[in-house]
């Protein structure tokens, strides 16, 4: 499905086009990684709603990013249950190994580090969300392993580009 088709399918679930702005923004963000002004305008045009309505939502909700985020968005929960189970140490560790403060992206564009409010998985605190996945019961050793596997994944993605094929004449 194209983005437009996906947005139309979402809009069909509501009696009002305005209700489809949130789902449309989620679809658009999946497609583009973040939501620059041009994408917001495209969403408004597809739905046929006021642009200001779209801007308003894109800036109100924290899961919408109007600025680019890194390839992996590390969202460490530092709410009470995670704090009680050591989230502060994990934050210090991440800031040190990534060389960034929370809210920033590493220069290679690989990691954006954020702290977030309760992720609703406090039974496995401390918790961090990366993309769609939750990682629970974290400690420094597990965090190290996780970062390593993310870096490996990024490396693979690069080497997964089609390797130059030997041409038939060689």
């Amino acid at each position, binding site marked *: 499905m194209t983005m437009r088709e996906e947005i139309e399918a979402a809009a069909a679930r509501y009696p009002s086009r305005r209700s489809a702005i949130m789902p449309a*923004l989620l679809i658009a963000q999946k497609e583009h990684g973040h939501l620059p002004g041009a994408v917001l305008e495209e969403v408004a045009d597809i739905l046929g709603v006021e642009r200001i309505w779209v801007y308003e939502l894109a800036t109100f909700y*924290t899961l919408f990013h109007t600025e680019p985020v890194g390839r992996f968005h590390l969202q460490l929960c530092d709410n009470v249950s995670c704090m009680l189970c050591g989230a502060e140490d994990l934050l210090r560790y991440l800031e040190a190994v990534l060389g960034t403060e929370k809210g920033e992206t590493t220069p290679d564009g690989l990691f954006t580090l954020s702290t977030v409010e309760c992720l609703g998985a*406090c039974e496995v605190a401390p918790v961090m969300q990366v993309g769609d996945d939750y990682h629970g019961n974290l400690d420094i050793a597990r965090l190290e392993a996780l970062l390593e596997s993310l870096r490996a994944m990024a490396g693979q993605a690069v080497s997964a580009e089609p390797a130059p094929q030997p041409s038939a004449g060689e």
Partner: protein
Amino acid sequence: MFEPVLLRNIDLPDGHLLSSYEAGGGYEALAKVLREHTPDEVVELVKQSNLRGRGGAGFPTGMKWSFVPKQSEKPKYLCCNADEGEPGTFKDRIIMERDPHQLIEGLAVSGYAIGAETAYVYVRGEYVTAIRRLEQAIAEARDAGYLGRRVLGSDLNFDVHIHCGAGAYICGEETAMLESLEGRRAQPRLKPPFPAVAGLYASPTVINNVETLACVPHIVARGASWFRGIGPDKSPGPKLYCVSGQVRRPGLYELPMGIALRELVEEHAGGPLPGRKVQAVIPGGVSAPVIPETGLEVGMDFDSLAAVGSMLGSAGVIVVDDTTCMVKVATRIVEFFHHESCGKCTPCREGLNWAVKVLRRIEAGQGTAGDLEQLEMLCKGIFGNTFCALGDGAAMGLRAALEHFRDEFVAHIEERRCPFH
């Protein structure tokens, strides 16, 4: 041993699939109501059960349903509150991930009772797995004739749609959720009109929590008196308790309403970590005022907790041990509310901003003599003067921390440092 009802499928490897749900008698309650009961009878049954809302406020569910006008020009809506943003709470996520059909059956029976043909489940956007499982379950239920046109060959038309939230705690407040569903910024609405009369798209709307709806098929299957027989008569039923924090066995526990907080924490959840002591417990998510260790005999139900100045809320039980600074915990909680304040009313937006500054100063050892009085004054200025219950929750929690752990606050100010560092 209490036989789990809501969590009975939770450990099945494929508990989220329709086949598992049906194998355990799933959707029989829906078939039964369509065969044997009028919608009014279902409302009456839920009234008789004394089921009270599991989303936080404990409002009687049957009564809420009976406020929906019987005759309505406009379509009626059922909204399921699956926003679950209250820190310390994870029960709705686990139901949706591991037993989504239980929720769907609850939605269908409840939709039939109130005369709604459409339900929206508002799930917080972070819950990606829950959303996928729920989507899959809705598709399975449609294929099997449990949702859609002429459900199970009856006259009922009923369908369920998912609406993903995008990260705002305030969307859990029911009228803010309706604003969000209508495509606006999530700011609470003035009540009245109440949603039962004019809610989503100004139509009659019922909003219920995931766990509330999950109770409904069991009430149909086993009867109202079975439900009322579990726990206190005025606040009965099987209940999900989310235990987290500094405790040996954090996790989701299903036990009767009204179980002593001490039994929950010390026996079921295994008590404090080795060598430590419980200092305090937050019984119902961070909106619920903290209870000191000496108060743990309290029963975990709406009325018993209200009687000691706290609340059951979302039953997010957070255990704090004696190695932790309560000023720090209180500060983190007020920071949370400040961050999530929607900004609509001044006491909440400005009052919490001010309270955060004072608390951070005290925690950093830079508090001054009048700071505690100032915090008390702020609580007074916020409580009862805000547009929605977010501000009230913040003020109540802070007031309880100041009351029960005053010594720790005073020590920070007098010693000019945090005694725990």
